[in-house]
């Protein structure tokens, strides 16, 4: 049996959805994009152009829900299936768009450079339990107008895993699409084998900016998957109650779904989000708050009820260093996410309210993800019945270390984490230098990066990617890209 957790009854889910639908139809959504307003107007939504507000109809919502696929897959840069976003499958991806990196040497947070990013993406290539890469950091050494596309470029150059990403401007979508076409060869191939997924965020409460709503349309036109990242802040920009915040999250997410599906019915989407309980003491948005995690799991239940695959920013921490808080908040989140069957879990590597990335934490989190994935494998009999012969063998041999049954099921039944998670006895741990978790993780980062192998893309594709990126950089006044070797 696959273990699961539920926070909402079916009845409560249906009530939340009904209330959200009413918000969309009665209060409407503020959308700062004339194309999107016109699109909704064409489908009989009432539009108040002066207030930039669209009032949805039940028909628009129903049709969007019917059109959206219940699952889809992401493919790596070589075209092989890498991420299965269906049913209760759980896939991990690093947290995204940190503006800082935790420097292991100084233990200070600083702006990431292109070299940091390359190190990250090389590391990502080796992390077994993290299925896709994300554009995890914003390099500070390139022009801000290419800081989104440049991340995608570096990711494609050094790691084959699909990329969870996003555009910071409307204009950036074009180059980000071109980079993908350079890898896939054609629009048809890109649509059939999605390489990236774009995060698109409404603004709380019930608003879409010009950029993010245009990103939805642009992605839909090329069947590039998107994940909606609605961010109600309980008690501040959303009701204090988790149910009230879930109503808002549902409404904002359904409004995004409608924009995507009306643009291109059947375009792949994830029912995602990044809600948070607002901390009234520090004016912060803790991702490690237990209420935040409960909301993530609950809206995933709502998404699944609506027949959609899901995503959440969960399994990350608000700690500033790789400390006990970082470990426990990440583990709690990752465990709950997996039990909820959230299909794309965005979190590993992230600290400090989604603002600071740590390569050492990423390595630790990879092991946490391994443990969690083992957990959702559940407890199943594996030639365990009848049990009598096994116990006869145990009594006869005195142990089962080399039993055929042990050899057959050892790898499948037992997940062995490490080397970041410590399982040595004290004497051996001392003999190996009494190293802290941070020291073990840092060493593992260096080891994995040193083992990096070039990606399998042809030299022509790699050279095309570089030409595209260089042209984009020149367009923004950068004569050349930063040194990354």
């Amino acid at each position, binding site marked *: 049996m696959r273990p699961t957790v539920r926070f909402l009854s079916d009845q409560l889910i249906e009530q939340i959805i009904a209330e959200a639908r009413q918000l969309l139809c009665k209060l409407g959504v503020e959308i*700062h994009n004339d194309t999107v307003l016109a699109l909704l107007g064409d489908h009989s939504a009432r539009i108040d152009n002066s207030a930039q507000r669209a009032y949805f109809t039940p028909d628009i919502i129903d049709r969007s829900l019917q059109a959206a696929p219940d699952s889809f897959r992401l493919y790596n840069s070589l075209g092989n299936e890498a991420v299965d976003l269906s049913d209760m499958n759980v896939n991990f991806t690093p947290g995204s768009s940190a*503006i800082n990196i935790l420097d292991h040497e100084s233990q200070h947070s600083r702006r990431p450079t292109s070299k940091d990013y390359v190190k990250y993406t090389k590391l990502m290539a080796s992390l077994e339990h993290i299925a896709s890469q994300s554009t995890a950091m914003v390099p500070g050494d390139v022009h*801000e107008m290419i800081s989104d596309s440049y991340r995608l470029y570096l990711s494609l150059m050094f790691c084959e895993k699909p990329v969870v990403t996003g555009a910071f401007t409307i204009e950036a979508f074009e180059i980000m699409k071109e980079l993908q076409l350079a890898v896939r060869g054609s629009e048809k191939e890109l649509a059939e084998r999605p390489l990236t997924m774009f995060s698109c965020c409404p603004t709380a409460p019930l*608003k879409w900016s010009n950029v993010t709503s245009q990103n939805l349309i642009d992605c839909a036109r090329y069947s590039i998957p998107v994940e909606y990242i609605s961010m109600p802040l309980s008690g501040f920009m959303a009701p204090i109650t988790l149910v009230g915040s879930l109503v808002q999250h549902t409404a904002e997410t359904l409004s995004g779904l409608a924009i995507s599906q009306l643009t291109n019915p059947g375009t792949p989407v994830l029912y995602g989000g990044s809600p948070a309980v607002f901390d*009234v*003491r*520090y004016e912060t948005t803790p991702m490690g708050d237990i209420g935040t995690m409960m909301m993530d799991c609950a809206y995933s239940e709502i998404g699944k009820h609506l027949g959609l695959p899901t995503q959440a920013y969960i399994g990350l921490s608000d700690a500033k260093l790789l400390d006990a808080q970082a470990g426990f908040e990440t583990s709690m989140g990752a465990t709950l996410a997996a039990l909820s069957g959230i299909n794309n879990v965005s979190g590993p590597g992230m600290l400090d309210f989604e603002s600071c990335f740590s390569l050492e934490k990423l390595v630790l989190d990879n092991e946490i993800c391994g443990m969690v994935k083992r957990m959702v494998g559940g407890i199943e009999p594996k030639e365990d019945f009848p049990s009598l012969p096994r116990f006869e063998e145990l009594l006869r041999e005195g142990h089962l270390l080399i039993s055929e049954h042990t050899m057959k099921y050892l790898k499948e039944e037992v997940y062995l984490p490490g080397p970041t998670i410590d399982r040595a006895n004290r004497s051996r741990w001392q003999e190996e230098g009494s190293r802290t978790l941070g020291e073990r993780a840092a060493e593992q980062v260096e080891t994995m990066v040193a083992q990096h192998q070039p990606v399998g893309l042809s030299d022509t594709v790699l050279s095309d990617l570089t030409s595209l990126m260089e042209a984009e950089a020149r367009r923004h006044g950068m004569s050349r890209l930063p040194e990354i070797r």
Partner: protein
Amino acid sequence: MDTLQRLSENMQKGNADQVARLTQQAIDEGCEPKTILDDALVGGMAVVGEKFKKHEIFLPHVLLAAKAMHAGMDLLKPLLVKDGIPTIGKVVTGTVQGDLHDIGKNLVGIMLKGAGFDVIDLGRDVSPEKFLDAAVSEKANVIGMSALLTTTMPVMKKVIALAHERNVRNQLKFIVGGAPMSKEYAQEIGADAYCYDAVSAVESVKRFMGAH
């Protein structure tokens, strides 16, 4: 208990109706408007700020107190103007061009007003020209800029550059805030203070005005 003390206590508890009533009562009793402002209202907000820092009260309570203070200020303001007492400071606030995220900025505005400052809120998506035009025409002391996006943060630098260009940089202090901001970034773009929350924004402005 005298009127000013009751006024201060009611303001700290966020009882806006009582604050309006007691402010009027203090005026009727012949209290100087400046004394009511300093002793009861500004003094009361200082207590609220201290309690917030110690986690004895939380942000919602601070906001309620600030809003209650507005109720008193509405009555005092015309009298202060009549007495020729200058405002303690004027702040122009706005979310920078390209950015729709105004919650942090709104919070700062409420708290600044609560601390007795005049606030000219330019809203969101505010261009550098609009910031400077307003600051000059309103004779503001401080410009407060907010951004939530890494792509809109650079607008802040443009606003400060424009102040230099127009030769008004020395007359103005710049405070900046928002999720992607940092002290280092604020220094890099030449801002006078990075404010990590609304209360720290008020403290910065108070510091600037004290120095004036």
